[in-house]
């Protein structure tokens, strides 16, 4: 078994193979999600369930996988910028709501950071864990940088960001329905500010306005969190 693995290792750890595996796993996830319509079966979650066991079984380490699929990481940037076009299409909806959007996300940011830190503290978490949890609602690059600066572990923060995104994507529409929120702007804003890109993917399914506003919320939440996390350090 090991000799076969050794023989095919150059192929299975190549850039082309790992890129195809990543995209194939995601497309499989999209297919399963569309077929079943079960919210728990998010494409990202299915991709992880395919790729992690594959890497474990074949003995390919994470740095190799990361290096070979770095083009996907690079594409994160342009995909966030592409949300700007959708936002431009909805500019009329946003024009009269600038103050309310900024205020809502600012208060949401205080609630998000404050609650996660205080709950973790009440349950006996140490400084490092609280610092790693505090920026969980923003996009991974910002969250990792903030975590490092406040004494957290960026690797843990990256995992918390994904957990938060998956949970928000699942629970968000249910919470919004229970609260009777009909406003498309409010729905999009809540999804993007609580669960970053994963929330935005879900908001896109809800509608174009929700998706565009959710993309905007990611950016505003990133700025607000970067401003507020240093103050939250007093709570640690």
């Amino acid at each position, binding site marked *: 078994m090991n000799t076969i693995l050794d023989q095919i290792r150059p192929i299975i750890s190549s850039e082309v193979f790992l890129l195809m595996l990543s995209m194939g796993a995601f497309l499989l996830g999209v297919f399963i999600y569309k077929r079943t319509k079960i919210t728990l079966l998010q494409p990202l979650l299915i991709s992880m369930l395919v790729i992690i066991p594959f890497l474990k079984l074949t003995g390919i380490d994470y740095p190799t996988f990361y290096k070979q699929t770095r083009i996907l990481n690079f594409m994160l940037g342009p995909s966030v910028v592409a949300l700007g076009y959708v936002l431009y299409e909805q500019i009329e909806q946003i024009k009269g709501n600038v103050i309310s959007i900024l205020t809502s996300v600012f208060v949401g940011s205080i609630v998000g950071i404050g609650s996660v830190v205080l709950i973790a503290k009440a349950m006996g978490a140490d400084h490092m864990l609280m610092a790693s949890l505090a920026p969980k609602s923003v996009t991974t690059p910002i969250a990792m940088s903030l975590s490092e600066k406040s004494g957290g572990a960026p690797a843990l923060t990256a995992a918390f960001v994904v957990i938060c995104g998956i949970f928000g994507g699942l629970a968000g529409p249910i919470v919004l329905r229970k609260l009777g*929120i009909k406003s498309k702007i409010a*729905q999009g804003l809540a999804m993007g500010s609580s669960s970053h890109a994963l929330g935005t993917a879900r908001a896109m399914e809800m509608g174009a306005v929700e998706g565009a506003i959710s993309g905007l919320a990611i950016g505003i939440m990133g700025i607000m969190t970067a401003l507020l996390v240093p103050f939250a350090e007093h709570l640690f």
Partner: protein
Amino acid sequence: MVYAELLSKSLFTILAAIAVSTVLTIATVALMQDNFEKRRTKGGSKQ
């Protein structure tokens, strides 16, 4: 490895904190924005 140990020890704390905080964030942002819009609509209809 150290992180794996920490995660297994504090998994409940982490999941509870993330879940409650995420729901609170969603509710706060959505209710505030919805309220702003309702007040604006009411104000507009009065005029």
